[in-house]
């Protein structure tokens, strides 16, 4: 709103947006602990969530907050793929929530890939709508497009390098691109590439559940999860409620972050008001993996993260899914989980990385079990062995579990209403 009470609308760049949100949050009286990732939830005698604890990386100590309700807002999981700004999104909140007993939904919708220059991190796929994609020899990649033809790029990348040139943008569009999204041009300006005139190699970086729609299952309008006292907001929560099996960029996800954050905050506050005093309860730590002494083998976070990436990055495993390949991945991932759950607690300096890699591992297992359970192609989930959409599978897939990962089918909301009406 301007001074005259008239609403003003404009596009807002990411950094502006984050700075504004942080300012508003501080003005609201919130204490922000930077560089202080949560590691685990605290639960009371009844299993209700009653706080969280984590590390302060720059102070080299731990923090603990006792609370009557907790909102998980840790984002999705992009598996340290370096898709722009996403390496802080490793599914940590999923693991914490799962240890407290939370369920997930739509985890099969977890395989969008974004286009970037092969060497770079700036995954701004929309501008590639003005691109022509070519093979090494200069011939056009058939069917390749940013929208509706990204799978053709993925298939071509399994054969060899793919190049792009934004040759469909005229002078006017080029000028608008420059002022609208300056960071898109950083990789080009700093390497002497003219993206409108020169061919440059591109790649596809996995965005996982950051731009997928799977996440913690929400059971009501307050963004409550299936665990008492635990709420979910933003990309940590499933976005199936607003966009099913496919999503776009800032629009849906930013709108959902704002709205679900508001709902979850209100829901958590209402719950807290009725939950009685936070003091006097006997709390225990819900975290298990990398946090408990087991005197077996050491925990090696970097090695584990790489092993998970090897299962979720390849286009032939995750972009194009198929029962045999998903099954093979799951065997390897499950074996890793057995190893990890027997491993010793991670060293103090390593514990945050250990939890991160364990979260990636758990996420991959919910994703692929859900992917196996959805025997059709729908939204971003593609099955080579079930290439068509199947109307009989117009339902949700719930998943959960750590040592034993399970899936179950839930009817779509519309089907529930239809049944109730009969």
């Amino acid at each position, binding site marked *: 709103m301007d001074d005259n009470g008239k609403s003003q609308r404009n596009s807002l760049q990411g950094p502006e947006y984050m700075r504004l949100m942080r300012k508003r949050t501080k003005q609201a009286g919130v204490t922000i602990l930077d560089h202080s990732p949560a590691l685990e939830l605290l639960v009371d005698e009844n299993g209700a969530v009653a706080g969280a604890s984590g590390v302060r990386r720059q102070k080299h100590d731990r923090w603990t907050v006792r609370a009557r309700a907790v909102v998980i807002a840790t984002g999705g999981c992009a598996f340290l793929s370096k898709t722009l700004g996403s*390496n802080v999104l490793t599914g940590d909140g999923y693991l914490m929530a799962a240890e407290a007993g939370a369920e997930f939904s739509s985890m099969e919708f977890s395989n969008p890939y974004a286009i970037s220059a092969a060497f770079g991190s700036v995954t701004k796929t929309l501008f590639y709508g003005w691109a022509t994609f070519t093979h090494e020899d200069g011939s056009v990649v058939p069917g390749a497009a940013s929208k509706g033809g990204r799978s053709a790029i993925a298939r071509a990348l399994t054969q060899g390098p793919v190049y792009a040139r934004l040759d469909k943008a005229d002078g006017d569009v080029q000028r608008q691109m420059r002022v609208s999204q300056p960071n898109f041009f*950083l990789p080009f300006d700093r390497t002497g590439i003219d993206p409108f005139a020169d061919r440059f190699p591109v790649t596809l970086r996995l965005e996982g559940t950051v731009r997928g729609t799977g996440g913690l299952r929400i059971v009501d309008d307050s963004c409550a999860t299936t665990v008492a006292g635990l709420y979910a907001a933003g990309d940590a929560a499933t976005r199936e409620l607003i966009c099913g099996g496919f999503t776009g960029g800032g629009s849906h996800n930013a709108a959902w972050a704002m709205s679900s954050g508001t709902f979850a905050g209100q829901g958590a506050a209402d719950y807290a008001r009725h939950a009685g005093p936070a003091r006097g309860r006997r709390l225990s730590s819900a975290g298990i993996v990398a946090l408990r002494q087991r005197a077996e083998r050491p925990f090696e976070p970097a090695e584990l993260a790489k092993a998970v990436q090897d299962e979720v990055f390849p286009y032939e495993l995750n972009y194009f899914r198929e029962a045999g390949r998903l099954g093979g991945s799951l065997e390897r991932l499950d074996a890793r989980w057995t190893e990890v759950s027997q491993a010793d607690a991670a060293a103090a300096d390593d514990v945050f990385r250990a939890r991160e890699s364990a979260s990636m591992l758990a996420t991959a297992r919910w994703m692929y079990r859900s992917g196996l359970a959805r025997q059709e192609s729908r939204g971003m989930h593609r099955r080579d062995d079930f290439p068509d959409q199947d109307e009989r599978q117009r339902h949700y897939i719930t998943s959960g579990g750590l040592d034993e990962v399970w899936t179950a089918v839930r009817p779509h909301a519309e089907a529930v209403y239809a049944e109730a009406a009969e």
Partner: protein
Amino acid sequence: MIEVIDAQRCTSCDICVNVCPTNVFDKTDGVPVIARQNDCQTCFLCELYCPEDALFVSPFADIPQNVDLETLRQKALLGSYRRAVGWTEETKDRRDIDRSYLLFGH
């Protein structure tokens, strides 16, 4: 990834240490150090927040590069992103010229 902090420009304000989402820098008694370069996600935020244009993030996300500070200074690459986004006094009119919604037909 982050390649260099220009010690001539740096005032040891430690803003980069505070804003880096992946905790790449460590404070010292003077100029901060790039302590964990491998953790850099090439998001360019440290450059954006540096009031002295003392930092340079190479666009290569996976492989460290050799950069020459003198060349960066001469080509005015230090601070180029901050100027483009409009986070400098001279370029602040650029902060509200994002017209992506027109470009994308919304």
